[in-house]
């Protein structure tokens, strides 16, 4: 074992190794193994028991590890990590996080990708990456529309609590813009249940008479839907193959973005 003196004498390698070893140790804790003994950690990492104990003892001084000696020297992550995670979450700008992902989706399907959030009873587009095709879905930053219209709005609406949904329905006339047709409350509730069950929404001719869209929810650490990621295109191009590709890309990307926001591993919406 390298001595502390060796580290203090300027062995950068020792310092880095100790930090790397710390990261390796803390990553052994998981939802299925939240409490580990020194022996467990030694077995899992090959790091000597002495080093494991000294590393965890040091982390304990900062509230990053909690050791229960009465339970046989069992360690668990300290609640101080929650503070660091909270800071990390607040650092995240959803637009910056989503932009490279949106570009990748656009490159894969060459259709317009839109990021939207809920603002009261409306959905608002906060970013988009357009298709490079001559005929493509166009949109604007700040474009807004009622939540029950379109795949994006319905994804955002699906995250409302029952009482919030009741309030929304009380305050809204269920009209669909493009055709002037209305949607019944039962039909809307069925659609929202479908979004919750499958993890995405599909809509045709709702925003305008010639568009189609697939949208999936982005959730944060509290399981709340904070944004919707949508691929939208001219309806005439929306073949079965393109629809399947859009569903695959948008749900996978939304799941990845959710995990980046601290949402625990999402259930796969695809069967």
């Amino acid at each position, binding site marked *: 074992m390298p001595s502390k003196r060796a580290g203090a004498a300027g062995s950068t390698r020792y310092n880095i190794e100790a930090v790397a070893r710390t990261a390796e140790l803390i990553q052994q804790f998981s939802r299925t193994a939240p409490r580990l003994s020194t022996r467990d950690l030694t077995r899992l990492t090959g790091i000597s028991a002495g080093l494991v104990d000294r590393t965890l003892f040091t982390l304990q001084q900062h509230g990053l590890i909690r050791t229960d000696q009465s339970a046989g020297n069992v360690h668990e992550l300290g609640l101080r990590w929650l503070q*660091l995670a909270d800071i990390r979450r607040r650092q995240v700008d959803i637009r910056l996080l989503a932009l490279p992902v949106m570009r990748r989706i656009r490159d894969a399907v060459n259709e317009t990708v839109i990021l939207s959030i809920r603002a009261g009873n409306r959905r608002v587009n906060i970013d988009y990456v357009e298709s490079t095709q001559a005929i493509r879905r166009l949109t604007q930053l700040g474009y807004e529309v009622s939540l029950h219209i379109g795949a994006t709005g319905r994804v955002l609406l699906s995250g409302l609590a029952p*009482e919030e949904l009741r309030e929304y329905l009380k305050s809204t006339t269920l009209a669909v813009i493009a055709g002037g047709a209305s949607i019944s409350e039962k039909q809307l509730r069925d659609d929202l249940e479908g979004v919750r069950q499958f993890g995405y929404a599909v809509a045709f001719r709702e925003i305008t008479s010639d568009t189609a869209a697939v949208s999936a929810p982005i959730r944060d650490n509290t399981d709340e839907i904070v944004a919707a990621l949508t691929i939208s295109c001219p309806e005439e191009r929306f073949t079965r193959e393109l629809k399947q590709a859009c569903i695959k890309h948008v749900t996978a990307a939304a799941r990845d973005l959710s995990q980046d926001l601290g949402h625990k591993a999402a259930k796969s919406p695809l069967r």
Partner: protein
Amino acid sequence: MTRSRSKGVSTRQRSAGAPDRHLITAVDRASRVLLAFTQSADFLTLPEVASRAGLSKPTAFRILATLVAKGLAFQNEANGSYGLGSLNLRLAEVILGGISVRESARLAMRRVRNQINETVTLGVRQGDACYYVESLEGRQTIGHSQTIGVALPLHAVPPGCAILASMSDDAVDDYLRHLPASAKSGMAGINKQRLLRQIETIRRQGHAASSGDASGVGHAVAVAIPCAKGGSDASLHISFPKGRFTNDLEQKCIKSLKDAVRTITEMRAVNC
């Protein structure tokens, strides 16, 4: 061989405080680098990290480079500043997964937030401290933001007081005997008699309220979540800016919290 030596370290640490000779300098420094980031200083330049962690710039750089490589920190490509990495989120998820009351509380918390539209926070007891582990913020333009994961002495905040009041008289006495140690973490000058009277009031009313929490700028109302074994190991509270306080809002908060705690208690596993 090594095992028995490691046990010796742990025993000494618990019985006689923190002997420096058992610290690993690089791990200690890395912890200081991580904890240099705060809500109000979430992106830091290298000189800022070095200054806050009390390290030289080259040392801070080497530690940050390792933390970045391991996912505990990241470097902003645009301006070179540092932030905390995604691994912190995964570690938090491990911790939260072990807090059983959280799963039962989530839906109830959302319902309370939707009813009251103010910040709803779940606090848990660990030792003599209350930690906020999850918070749902209200959707108003101005709201109360809670700091997650920081140890707050039980007597210092309404959610902690609510937990304290649910404890037996013996347990409260025991806590009060240890008060000087807790008070060192920021609550000097606590009046024990006043605290005991406060605990009595909380027991009588079933909730704790305070115009001024740890931050001193919010009003908070808290209700303890009972534990099957008796007492309580968690509490739910609503907090909002003092300027929005009205008796009517406070009564609504109390009713909403008590309904939520009833639901959580019903849902909660018998073992807590």
